[in-house]
């Protein structure tokens, strides 16, 4: 390392590795992992989301899990939180749709209207 610019480049890279500890990321993707969710395939949905985020090297997004949301017939459910925006809850998600959520909603900033179960 020779210059301040080198240091800052290293900082950006290191910060990205620490995203999960950041309290203020732009997006938070939550996968419902109650017994119902897992039975409906939430694990595969989670894996697909993580894989897609890795492939696209997306910073500023964390992925976490929650329990049953009370809409067991709609599982697997995925929620996307963004500050000052309505929470988007997608229902009946397959790993393929999960990848599209990352590509279209997170990267493209466009909600997948046909998959939305609720918005509030």
């Amino acid at each position, binding site marked *: *390392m*020779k*210059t*301040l610019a080198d*240091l*800052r480049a*290293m*900082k950006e*890279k*290191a*910060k990205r*590795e*620490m*995203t*999960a*500890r*950041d*309290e203020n*990321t732009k997006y*938070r993707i939550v996968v*419902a*992992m*109650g*017994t119902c969710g*897992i039975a409906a395939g939430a*694990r595969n949905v*989670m894996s697909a989301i*993580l894989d897609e*985020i*890795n492939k696209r090297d*997306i910073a500023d997004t*964390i*992925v*976490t*899990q*929650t*329990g049953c949301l009370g809409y067991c017939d709609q599982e697997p459910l995925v929620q996307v939180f963004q500050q000052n925006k309505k929470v988007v809850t997608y229902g009946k998600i397959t790993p393929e749709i999960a990848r599209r959520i990352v590509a279209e909603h997170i990267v493209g900033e466009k909600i997948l209207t046909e998959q939305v179960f609720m918005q509030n």
Partner: protein
Amino acid sequence: MYRIHILMAMDSHTIAQGSREVKEALIRDLALAGISDEVKIVETGSLGISNKGVVLVVFPDDVYYVNVTTNDIPDIISEHLIKGRIVERLHYKKAAVGKGGEKKDERLGKQVRVVLKNAGIIDPQSIEEYIAEDGYEALGHAVTEMTPEQVREEVKKSGLQGRGGAFFPAGIKWDFAAGTEADQKYIICNADEGEPGTFKDRLILEGDPHSIIEGMALAGYAVGATKGYVYIRGEYRMSIEHVQIAIDSARENGLLGQGIFASDFDFDLEIREGAGAYICGEETALIESIEGRRGEPRDKPPFPPAEGLWGKPTVVNNVETLANIPQIILKGAKWYRNFGTEKSPGTKVFTMVGNINNPGLIEVPMGITLREIIYNIGGGIPNGKGFLLAQMGGTTGGILIEEHLDLPMTVETLRGIGAGLGSGALLVVDDSQCPVDLVKNFVEFFNHESCGKCTLCREGTGRLHELLSRLTSGRGEEKDIELVQVLSATMMRGAFCGLGQAAPVPILGCLRYFKDVFIRHASEHVCAANKCEMEAVAETIAA
């Protein structure tokens, strides 16, 4: 991408409680659950929670678990990491750590984190994580965009006072060393933390070692020194290990060595291990020890900034002082003065020990009251007992009682009542304890640690121990109390260094506030707290 980061406190306390075993179990069980590639385990320094066994935090949920054993790991994985349900029986609700210096996290009570901003947040063995949290930015900024005078000026403006206990203005000390012409100057980090009950420096070194390295390099640039020593007491194995790793990785990344940030500033560091002598925390005794001699204090003046290590100008700064420096350079003196009071700016790190519900490491702004520390942050005194006294600043610290609970704690106000902030140990004592027994134990420690150089300290601590032992064993007389007072006053005036001068401070403090208790011990041979064994009396009765 790791969707979950688990931060495990790996300090000496939690390791003693089995954190290594818990980590092994975690690695094994994550593999069994098939989610090893989703969870990153990060070893970090103290999370500021003591006496709660193995402590870990799950991010991004920011959930703290305490008293975790290897048997709890399957539940944490299957319930929390997979299903997102918090394991309530291990959940620690009042999280003790928040991130970010200026942000006041309400969970912290009145705590503010400047020095401890990274402790319990980053992996101390990873230079990348230190850099991610603005690490080495201040050093880069200083050596490429500031003159040494400007660096000193900023530190002077901040009003930072030495955090080793003497509270001498750090910037002025630097000026002395900068103003002395010499072919070689040195920076020494005093990490010979020997004060009983004080462990703040250890937790800073273990949790954020790069902040010390950066602080020392900045000090080197400011005074024109190219070489530094970190003098760490030998018992602090983990501090030594973490600082060595940090020095090595700073060197590998060109942050120590020649031509730092392509400037003409060279700086390098070495660790020197202390051998466990209390006196070596005194800066000139420490210098003697680095030079390979018996640790005994030198005559002053000359002071180290004029003539220190190997006769060269030397700045000796405490760990906590140095940890403040990068923040002051990065954010400015004005920002630093947002914390604390006009005459005592900044924060102070305390270790809270004794009869208190939440013992541990805290950082608070200067000027906070003792009541807030004990009852708000510390969670009060356990078992429904009352407050007897607090000793501020380690074994040599002054005594504070009920009437001082609402006094804003600053260097000036404490000086006014014959106390000081000292090293930052806060010993809380409940009303079931006996002040005479307490000071007898203190003086026993000083008697053991006196280096023997001067008669007043060598003999004085011995005689004080003898006199106090008479009082606590039912053999005392009222004139012993008077002798204790005279001897104490003489030592404070005449002892060669801080050890002998300060040893009587808590004794005189207790005598001032609890004289009646001393008198009862002497004249009636009664210890109301029933802590002293009045054997002589028992013998008399038996006879």
